[in-house]
C-alpha cells in the first residue's frame, strides 16, 4: 500500500521534503493571486503615466477626444460609463428584487430550481451575445416602437424632457443601458436570493403569526434583515455594469461627446478601449486609452471592494453562485 509508506521511518525525510514542497507550491500559488492584482494596478499606472503627465488633471475634465491633433480627455467616456450603469441599475433593481422574492417566497418547490437555474443561465451567456442581440434585435425594436413613443410623450415634459429629445437612432446611451440592465439582472437577483435565504424562518414565521401578509413579511422583516446584503448585491451588479465591454460596444455608437439626450450615441470607457485600442497609433493615444483603463480600474475596484466588504459579513457559502 502506497499510503502506508508514510509510516516507514526510512521515508520520513523524503516525506518531509515533499510536504515542504507541496506547502510551498500552494502558498506560491496563493501569492500569485495576491501579486496579480498589484501587477494589474502597477502596469496600468505605468502605461497611463505618459497621458496623465501630459494632460495633468485636464484629462479628467475635458470632453475633447481627437486622435488627429493628439488631444484626449476622458470626460465623455466617464460620463457615459456612469450614466449607462446608473440607468441600467434603475431598470434592473426592481426586476431583480421581484425575481429574488419570487424565487425565495413565492415559487412552489418544483418551480424554484428550474427558474433559478434559468436565471443563472442568463448570467452564463457571454456578453458578446448580448451585444449582437442588442444590435440586431433590441435596437431596431426600440427604434421603431419604443423610442418614438418616448420622444413624443416624455420629450415635452419639463425638467426631464431634454433627456428624450432628438431622432430615434436605435443605438445610443438608452439602448446600452437597456442591454446592461438585462445583463446585470441575473447577478443582482442571484445575490438577493442568496441573501433572502439567510433570513431565519422563525423571524418570518413570527411575522405571519402576527397576521402579516406575505408582502408585509417581505417588506418589514426580510428586507430590513437583509439590507446590507441587498446593497452589496446591487453594488456587485454596478461593478459588473461599469466594466462591461462587449455588450455596450455594440449598441452605444462610440461617439466621444456628451449629448444632452439619452437617445443619442455616446461612449463608455470600456467601449472606447475595445473600439480603438488595437488600432491606436502613437504613444499618447495608446497611453490615453490605458489611462481610461486605469480610471475604470479605480472606479470598479472601489465599487467591488465595497460590495465584497458588505457581503463578507454574510459568510461565503451563501454566495457561491456569484
Amino acid at each position, binding site marked *: 500500500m502506497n*499510503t*502506508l509508506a*508514510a509510516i516507514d521511518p526510512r521515508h520520513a525525510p523524503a516525506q518531509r521534503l515533499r*510536504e515542504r514542497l*507541496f506547502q510551498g*507550491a*500552494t*502558498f506560491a500559488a*496563493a501569492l500569485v*493571486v*495576491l501579486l*496579480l*492584482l498589484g*501587477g*494589474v494596478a502597477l*502596469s*496600468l499606472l505605468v502605461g497611463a503615466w505618459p497621458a496623465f503627465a501630459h494632460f495633468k488633471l485636464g484629462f479628467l475634465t475635458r470632453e475633447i477626444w481627437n486622435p488627429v491633433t493628439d488631444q484626449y480627455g476622458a470626460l465623455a467616456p466617464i460620463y457615459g460609463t456612469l450614466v449607462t450603469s446608473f440607468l441600467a441599475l434603475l431598470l434592473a433593481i*426592481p426586476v*431583480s428584487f*421581484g*425575481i429574488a422574492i*419570487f424565487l425565495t417566497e*413565492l415559487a412552489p418547490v418544483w418551480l*424554484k430550481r428550474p*427558474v433559478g*437555474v434559468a*436565471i*443563472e*443561465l442568463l448570467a*452564463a*451567456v*457571454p456578453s*458578446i*451575445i448580448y*451585444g*449582437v*442581440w442588442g*444590435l*440586431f*434585435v433590441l435596437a431596431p425594436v426600440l427604434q421603431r416602437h419604443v423610442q418614438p413613443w418616448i420622444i413624443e410623450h416624455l420629450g415635452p415634459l419639463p425638467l426631464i424632457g431634454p433627456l428624450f429629445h432628438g431622432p430615434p437612432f436605435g443605438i445610443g446611451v438608452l439602448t446600452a443601458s437597456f442591454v446592461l440592465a*438585462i445583463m446585470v*439582472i*441575473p447577478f443582482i*437577483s442571484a445575490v438577493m436570493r442568496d441573501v433572502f435565504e439567510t433570513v431565519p424562518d422563525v423571524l418570518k414565521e413570527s411575522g405571519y403569526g402576527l397576521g402579516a*401578509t406575505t*408582502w*408585509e413579511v417581505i417588506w418589514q422583516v426580510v428586507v430590513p434583515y437583509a439590507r446590507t446584503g441587498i446593497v452589496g448585491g446591487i453594488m456587485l451588479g454596478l461593478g459588473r455594469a461599469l466594466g462591461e*465591454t*462587449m455588450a455596450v460596444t*455594440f449598441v452605444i455608437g462610440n461617439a466621444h461627446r456628451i449629448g444632452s439626450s439619452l437617445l443619442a450615441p455616446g461612449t463608455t470607457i*470600456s467601449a472606447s*478601449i475595445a473600439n480603438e*485600442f488595437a488600432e491606436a497609433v502613437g504613444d499618447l493615444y495608446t497611453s490615453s486609452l*490605458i489611462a481610461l483603463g486605469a480610471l*475604470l*480600474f479605480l472606479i470598479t*475596484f472601489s465599487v*467591488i*471592494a465595497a460590495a465584497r466588504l458588505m457581503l463578507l459579513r454574510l459568510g461565503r457559502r451563501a454566495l457561491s*453562485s456569484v
Partner: protein
Amino acid sequence: MSRRLLRKLVNVLALGLSGLATAIGLFFLGAILWTLIHSGLAGVSLKLFTAMTPPPGSSGGLLNAIYGSVVMTVIGILIGGPIGMLAGTYLAEYGRTARISTVIRFVNDVLLSAPSIIIGLFVYELLVIRMGHFSAIAGAVALAIIAMPVTVRTTEDMLNLVPQGMKDASTAMGAYHWRTITSVIYPAARSGIVTGLLLAVARISGETAPLLFTALNNQFWSTNIAAPMANLPVVIFQFGLSPYPNWQQLAWSGALLITVSILILSIAARLVVSSLTPGGNR
C-alpha cells in the same frame, strides 16, 4: 375591514409584480435563445466546421476560429486551473486561519468581478509589448488570469465540504498533510473541483474583451501560438459589426455555437453539484 382589504390588495399586487419580474427575466433568456437559434441555425452546415473564415462576399466557415478558441481556452485553463487549485488548497488547508488568507480571499473576490477588458490591457502591457506583436499565447494568458479566481473560489469551497473526520483519520494513520490532501481530500472533492474547472471553462470560452488586443484575429489557418490567432468571440465581434451579410451570418452561427457549448457546460456543472449536495434546494 377596508384596511384589511387594502392590505390584501397591496399583497396581491406586490406578489403579482414579482411574478411579472420573473416572467420578464425568463422572457429575455427565451428571446435571446430564440434569436440565436433562428438566425444561427440558418448558417450551420458542414462547411461551418471545415472552411476558414472567408473574405467579404464569398462563402466560408469558422474552422480557424473554432480551433483558435479551443486552443486558447485549453491553454488558459491549463495555466489558470492548476494555479487556482493550489491557491484554493492553500486557503482551505494550510492557510485556513492565516491572516494573509483573509487578504487573498478578498483580492480573489475582487479579481473575480474585475472587468475583463482591464485584464486584456494588463496582458497587453505584460506580453504583447514585450513580444512586439499580438499572439495566441498572450490571449491564453489573459484567459488564464480570468479562469484563476473562479477555480480558487470553487476549489476552496469544495475542499471545505470534505468532512473533518476523513482528514483526521488520514492524519491519525501518520500521513503527512500533503499526502492527506492528495490522497484523501482531493479524491473526496473531485467532482466539485471538476465542476469549478467546467465553470471556469464556460466563463473564459465566451470572453471577448481580453482577446481583442492580445490574440487579435487571423483570417487564415494558424497553429503558431506565438502569432495572432483567430477565435470565435473576436470573429463574432468583427463580423457582427461588418456590413457584409455573409459575415453577419457567420457571426450568428458562431454566437449560436458559443452559447450552446457554454450552456451545456454550465448545466453539466450544475448537475455535478446537485449530485454532490442532496437536499440542496437549488
